[in-house]
């Protein structure tokens, strides 16, 4: 039966981050880079990083996609800056989910995890 209108995925903080993304752009002197795309929705995210002594010193992302995948890239690049590579490699989907502070519907889960896949690819 009817379960009411779901809580919006596009809450204010999400839309703000979509309009004014964090860490968007090209990182000169990047030491590694990873690109992941979702051909089903045309999203493509590249994450570039500068790593030194086992730590991610800086991270930026570029590409195009839906609001959720771009916001995920903003959130993720902010989270990994200054963190140990080993701990980033162990980041799980639950931690990404928490970054959003809102419930993402099952059909959009892939968007949320696309940047994480790009990061893991870069750190391989």
């Amino acid at each position, binding site marked *: *039966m*009817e379960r009411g*209108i*779901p809580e*919006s*995925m*596009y809450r204010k903080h999400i*839309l703000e981050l*979509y*309009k004014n993304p964090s860490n968007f752009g090209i990182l000169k002197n990047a030491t590694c880079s990873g690109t992941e795309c979702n*051909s*089903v*929705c*045309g*999203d493509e995210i590249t994450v570039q990083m500068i790593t030194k002594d086992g730590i991610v010193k800086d991270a930026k992302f570029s590409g*195009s*996609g*839906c*609001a*959720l995948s771009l916001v995920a890239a903003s959130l993720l690049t902010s989270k990994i800056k200054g963190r140990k590579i080993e701990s980033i490699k162990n980041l799980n989907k639950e931690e990404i989910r928490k970054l959003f502070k809102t419930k993402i*519907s099952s059909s*959009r889960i892939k*968007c949320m995890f696309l940047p994480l896949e790009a990061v893991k690819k870069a750190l391989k």
Partner: protein
Amino acid sequence: MKIDNKIAKALKNDFPIFRNNLGLVYLDNAATSQRPASVLNAVKEFSERDNANVDRGVYSLAERAMKKYSQARKIIANFIKAEPEEIIFTRNTTESLNLLAYTIPSIIPKNKNEILITEMEHHSNLVPWQQLAKRQGFKLKFAKIKPDFTLDMENLRENLTDKTAIISLAHVSNVLGTINPVKEIADLAKSKGAIVIIDAAQSIQHADINVKEIGCDFLAFSGHKVLGPSGIGVLFGKKELLEKLPPFNFGGGMISKVTKEDSKWAEIPEKFEAGTQDVAGAIGLAEALNYLKKVGLEGIKEWENYLLKYALRRLKEIPGIKIFSPGEEKSISLVSFNLPGIHPHDVAGLLNEKKIAIRAGHCCAMPLMEILKASGGVCRASFSLYNTLEDIDLLVDILKEIQEKFK
């Protein structure tokens, strides 16, 4: 019956989905249509009263089940002006087309090695032919579309040659809504000796289909796009061609005699219906067609066309909107569009928050998306007899809100 907004609103009451999802604005009818209670009841009643295996049971219950199954086939045949034995039950359009792609090489003359489709095909009428071309070393050709989203007939004529073995095309594009001139194309193809296959998945609910008038050799559609259940589909084939084609699936029900060494096939249509079929599904599909006829095909067509006209007019109010439609005169009742700078999945996600269901993405037509330069896909709103002007108003109002939100 002439349908107006009031009647359309009342028609919603025939469809339990709306009772169980209050406020639902369902605009994804091109993906699957909703089912009237009469269809759901027909399926239920068959299971509760008449269910038995239809394959030569010699008891009364099986005879009754067989009678209902045969009646369903007859109703479906009548709907497209075919003979009952020309109706093969499959799971859906995709399976119908695959059945052909696997069996058809045996009736293709040796001097023919080209398959012609169009740039607006759904993957289900593209991938089977692409893979057949690979298997047989055939050439797969695409007739182009024009900037006005209609088929480029001149280009189609150029691509249609004496080497064309098969032309397979959508009666109606699932992305553009474009109605293709299938009769004219069938005539052209016949003059080149090509086999004509029509993908009627999108047209079956919206157009009067007369296979004799079209002059096609085969035609495929799905039950679930014409108010019927999912899991039941149809392949129409001209009798003399079905008789020539070898079976696709082997097993019970499709044989006349089996020895350890060899088998002989049953007559059509059974030759193509190995294994126990979705009998309840066939009965449900027949009931769906009865429902449409009861409401009136002409009235439905008129109302749906009015909905499209209204939707196109209202959508054009949105600044910068990109609409992929040839206009209401050349299209069935669906419209694809994009809001500038907003991903279709975000549009659909936000519409969902207001209980509006539309399709967003590549709509199983990736090559077409490339031509439309829509790498993220499109938003598609598709209408059915039960949609109202309020449904469209709400869609447009929320689209405007979304645009504001993303500014």
